[in-house]
């Protein structure tokens, strides 16, 4: 990490660099998961790490997600800081019990005596033409659970720093990686002093309506804002970055200005993040809102086969349609 502190790199590479830095800086940091070693993970996010840090730090585990998270908890109790990889979103569920009943609650159960600084990395979301279980967005199923923190970067720079902060956090963090953005390049400044992990960021200012998103949908919302601008509409775009906690203050500040809000995520709308955001922002901004908070997301259906995912996922037109509807109030 020398003089040249800003590099252009893909999001996956930014996480790789971030993990490398963490392994280097703290001997207690471990990488665990299926195929994270020689293969470097199916997305190469852990590429080269085992070679440089050895099998004791970068651990290929048996094929058992509950075991991965459960032993990571034990390692954390021993003073380690495991960064665990779940190979794909749809394979986190065998570990759900350990995450929900143990990882999330042990700090409280021990009245604060033990801390579990475990990061669970989950490549998530669709848009890559994959088979079943490889395109899901299960963040709501974790956000409802107290004791967990949920974040999702949208770009390479955030991916680098948010991973640093997640590893440094003494709380368990579920780190949702937008897999369809893995190959998107962005600036990473490894010396920048980052803002707080759980604060949203205004990625585009606007006056007519606020679009909020996180992870893979931020880029889409920026495209929507561009398209809307061509039609003379000024949209503000917020990258939430964190799903638990949600930065309601930032959303509120934006909505008090724009008076209209559309929430976009890939996860199904029903019981999704949009519901929580809509409910709370409506309560906070009841007299400011000119239109109900509208939500664009997945349908109440299993993630469809790849040839239908474009219809299932929020796309430019569907978000613009929601924007139009909100503006029509």
């Amino acid at each position, binding site marked *: 990490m020398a003089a040249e502190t800003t590099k252009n790199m893909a999001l996956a590479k930014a996480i790789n660099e971030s993990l490398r830095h963490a392994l280097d800086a703290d001997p207690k940091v471990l990488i665990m998961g299926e195929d994270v070693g020689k293969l470097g993970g199916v997305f190469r996010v852990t590429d080269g790490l085992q070679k440089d840090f050895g099998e004791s730090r970068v651990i*290929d585990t048996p094929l058992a997600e509950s075991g991965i998270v459960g032993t990571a908890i034990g390692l954390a109790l021993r003073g380690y800081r495991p960064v665990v990889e779940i190979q794909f979103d749809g394979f986190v569920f*065998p570990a759900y019990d350990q995450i929900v009943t143990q990882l999330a609650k042990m700090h409280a159960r021990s009245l604060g005596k033990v801390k579990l600084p475990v990061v669970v990395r989950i490549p998530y979301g669709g848009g890559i033409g994959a088979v079943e279980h490889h395109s899901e967005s299960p963040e709501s199923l974790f956000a409802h659970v107290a004791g967990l923190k949920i974040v999702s970067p949208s770009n390479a720079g955030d991916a680098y720093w948010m991973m640093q902060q997640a590893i440094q956090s003494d709380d368990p963090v579920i780190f949702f990686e937008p897999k369809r953005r893995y190959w998107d390049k962005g600036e990473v400044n490894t010396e920048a002093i980052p803002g707080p992990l759980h604060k949203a960021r205004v990625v585009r200012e606007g006056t007519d309506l606020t679009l909020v998103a996180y992870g893979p949908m931020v880029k889409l919302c920026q495209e929507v804002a561009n398209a809307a601008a061509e039609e003379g509409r000024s949209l503000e775009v917020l990258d939430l970055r964190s799903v638990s906690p949600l930065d309601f203050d930032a959303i509120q500040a934006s909505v008090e200005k724009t008076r209209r809000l559309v929430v976009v995520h890939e996860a199904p709308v*029903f019981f999704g993040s949009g519901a929580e955001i809509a409910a709370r922002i409506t309560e906070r901004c009841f007299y400011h809102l000119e239109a109900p908070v509208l939500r664009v997301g997945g*349908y109440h259906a299993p993630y469809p086969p790849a040839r239908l995912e474009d219809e299932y996922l929020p796309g430019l037109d569907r978000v613009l*349609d929601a924007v139009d509807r909100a503006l029509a109030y």
Partner: protein
Amino acid sequence: MTVESTAARKPRRSAGTKSTAGKRTTARKSPDAEHEPVQLLTPEGERVKNAEYDKYVDDITPEELRGLYRDMVLTRRFDAEATSLQRQGELGLWASLLGQEAAQIGSGRALRDDDYVFPTYREHGVAWCRGVDPTNLLGMFRGVNNGGWDPNGNNFHLYTIVIGSQTLHATGYAMGITKDGADSAVIAYFGDGASSQGDVAESFTFSAVYNAPVVFFCQNNQWAISEPTEKQTRVPLYQRAQGYGFPGVRVDGNDVLASLAVTKWALERARSGEGPTLVEAYTYRMGAHTTSDDPSRYRGDEERLAWEAKDPILRLRRFLEASNHADEGFFAELEAESEALGKRVREAVRAMPDPDHFAIFENVYADGHALVDEERAQFAAYQASFADEGV
């Protein structure tokens, strides 16, 4: 908390701490290579006697032997076609069974029609034995559906992608057979990697406690993506069963006769009320994990070459030829049939239409759900809005 310094004591020996020997391993020795599997046909195609298992194949006819050969050849042909269709962009992904034909055809041909199969995602050979049209297997890999056949049409369940889950479904199904007083059996396929999943262990427990008529057929193809079997177990996998109170046996999974015989034995146990059996078919994944995988990152060529010498198809051909059970005409005809199959599959895949958009909302529920209805209607209106605009 007692965290002692690393320097203070000598590290204990452990898989987790041994040094990494370069990027590619060569001639990796499996921890269990010394456990000789049941073998009836040597790689050279010689029939070896086996007091216990011979009786299950003693009455096999030359025609049946040619049938097994044909099954393996056509399966391999189909598999190769699918791999190439993936390369051409017609499929999104393919999980090749290359090298595992004998394990699959041997076990698949041991089944009766009324038996039920719970596969993973790689049992194209078993699907073939069950009469599932190969092109139906391709729908999910093309991305037009998540499972393109009627499981009850051929008593062949849908492919299960979440590792190990299906072993419990198989066990439950087998419990149902018992309740029905039927004498059919169930076979559950899974891999060496899957053996680590809690669900597989629970299926062992349930099937033992309820004495369910199920055969657990583990294809140990030495790899779970990039992880060798040592990452899942330190003893041979077939031994796992004994701790649950039922027998486990290792069979040469590249020997179609042995795979047939051992599976028949296990199925007979199931039918006659003796409960579950674990069969470990010792074989090798000759290709990549899937078309997305690059095995050169984690394994060397020596290993694959060693296994090539044990090819399942070659050894049966040698036997057929040596015993005069098949002539040139047979092989030539089969070659033509293979080509025809390849062509049929190619054409079928290319002709496979994309699903209707409204399929998203179909079959979410059997009895309907108000929200699905509402979202379907909204979707229809939204789609129609483009039609109106003439887009």
